[in-house]
């Protein structure tokens, strides 16, 4: 097709090798998820078979067991708790955090940078360090096993992250637009809500999704401060050992519902993922 065939074929070989290697990596990344889904679809005899079966006739029995009858415990309640707590804490964290981020970016005061650093550094504390004091605190105000307890904790956990990342997004937009709006008679609040916020929409979306993922996936505090009424999906899944290691298919089926929505979000979030995950340090 082309006269200059040698560099082209070299290029193709390199490209083919790279693509092949990348496919191997993708295979490794997806393999455990494949195992999860197939185990959920296997009949019990296939789950425990040796050697493992690769071809099997799929059955929805595990899904039925998990969601309709399994163990008398209703997974749907856990799922509902997870959705409610994730949604509420995300809305709070992004709502409160975007205001604070805007103020820190636009109205710097003496020590505001130190305050921002301090807020950020709380994010790095290991959650396990909080379990004793948080448990005692929530117990003393009667919040153990309530949705509010987890909503408060996740809001706080995500606030530092949201503030830090959004502060960078606000600092990136030109201040002239806001000044022009002020001249046009907007109040400061209107400037924030109608001019600044729409301009950082990608940042809002990214921090909201990451906050939601953190809250959705969090296990340790949920395990400590909820027992039944407000317990979330990770708490449910951590009860696997209570099934005596038997109900693999059922737990994999619930695991699928715990992971699938997040996967879909992640796939579409790519653009600002790095900036969010590194707290704005890498773009």
């Amino acid at each position, binding site marked *: 097709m082309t006269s200059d065939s040698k560099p082209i074929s070299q290029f193709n070989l390199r*490209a083919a090798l790279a*693509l092949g290697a*990348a496919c191997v990596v*993708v295979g490794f*990344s997806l393999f*455990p*998820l494949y195992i*999860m889904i197939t*185990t959920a679809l296997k009949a019990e005899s296939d*789950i*425990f078979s*040796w050697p*493992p079966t690769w071809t099997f006739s799929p059955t929805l029995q595990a899904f039925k067991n998990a969601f309709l009858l399994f163990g008398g415990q209703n997974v749907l309640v856990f799922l509902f708790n997870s959705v409610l707590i994730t949604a509420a804490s995300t809305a709070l964290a992004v709502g*409160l*955090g975007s*205001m*604070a981020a805007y*103020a*820190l970016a636009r109205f710097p*005061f003496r020590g505001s*940078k130190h305050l921002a*650093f301090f807020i950020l*550094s709380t994010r*790095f504390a*290991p959650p*396990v*360090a909080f*379990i*004793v*004091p*948080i448990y*005692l*605190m929530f117990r003393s105000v009667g919040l153990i096993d309530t949705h509010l307890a987890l909503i408060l904790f996740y809001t*706080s*956990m995500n*606030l*530092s992250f949201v*503030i830090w990342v959004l502060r960078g997004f606000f*600092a990136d937009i030109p201040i002239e637009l806001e000044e022009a709006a002020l001249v046009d008679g907007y109040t*400061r609040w209107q400037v*924030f809500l109608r001019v600044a916020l729409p301009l950082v929409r990608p940042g809002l979306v990214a921090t909201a999704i990451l906050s939601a*993922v953190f809250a959705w*996936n969090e*296990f340790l505090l949920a395990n*400590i401060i909820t027992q039944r009424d407000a317990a979330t999906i*990770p708490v449910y*899944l951590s009860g*696997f*050992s209570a099934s005596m290691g038997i109900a693999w298919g059922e737990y*994999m089926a619930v*695991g699928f519902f715990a*992971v699938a929505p997040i*996967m879909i979000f*992640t796939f579409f979030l*790519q653009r600002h993922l790095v900036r969010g995950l*590194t*707290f*704005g*340090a*890498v773009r």
Partner: protein
Amino acid sequence: MSLLREKRKIAFAMISPSILVIVAINIFPIIFAVYISLHLWSFGRGEPRFAGLLNYEDLYYDGRFIDAVFTSAKFVFFAVLVEFLVGFALAFLFNVKVRGMATLRQVAVLPIMVMPIVAGLVWFYMFNENFGVINWLVTLLGAPKVGFLTDLDVALFSIVLADAWQWTPFVMLVMFAALQSLPEYVYEAAKMDGLNGWQTFWRVTIPMLRPSIMIVIILRIVDSFKMIELVFMMTQGGPAGRTEVLPWYLYVTGFQGLDLGYAAAIAVCMLIIVTIFTQFFVARIGFGDDQK
């Protein structure tokens, strides 16, 4: 002047709700943890009694605590080593410009967001000695089955492998973004100076990536230090305490041993360790984007 005062009022109104929540749920518990750690404080054994530094003294002589510190250090070291080396190499692989590579990259990073408890559940299944798929692969290679989660010398590395599955893509993603942000002209300049590919890599690419490398390593150190889910699902600290990392020891002390004062002392030690590493991170990112 009134403009300045108005600005201040607005700033205060915008910041204070967040600060209130962070102070109540984030800062206060840390101070409270220090307070608890200075007491003999157990569930259902009467009132807490002030004990000064007794809990810390006990930690100093607690072989199990020292072991947990070393197990954590070992886990963090190997996990971050594997994740960084592989992730770094993969960033270059996914940086090759071929059609389809972008989609493959987007799929390869999916493990980052998987619920850690689910990751633990699935790897627990795959590592099973009787019907696990990894032992099936081992036997395909003609080797005898391995007790991935029961062998004293292997268990921690099985957890490292599960952690690496989840977090190597994170390193790859960050290093890939850093690679993308390198300006083209430095490579042109390197070419004009007659540097070959290898020299360009060591003398141009690596030095320019150094800030991102530091950031990703510190983030991974701090993050892998708090890992507990994989241990919770896969080994519960066993076999014979070989996977008992600090978070797990704290959890067991506080909520199975019910010794809250002692658990809080461990928490304070962990916070000190994390603070030291965090300072590096904050120093790195703080003064770059901010000096405008």
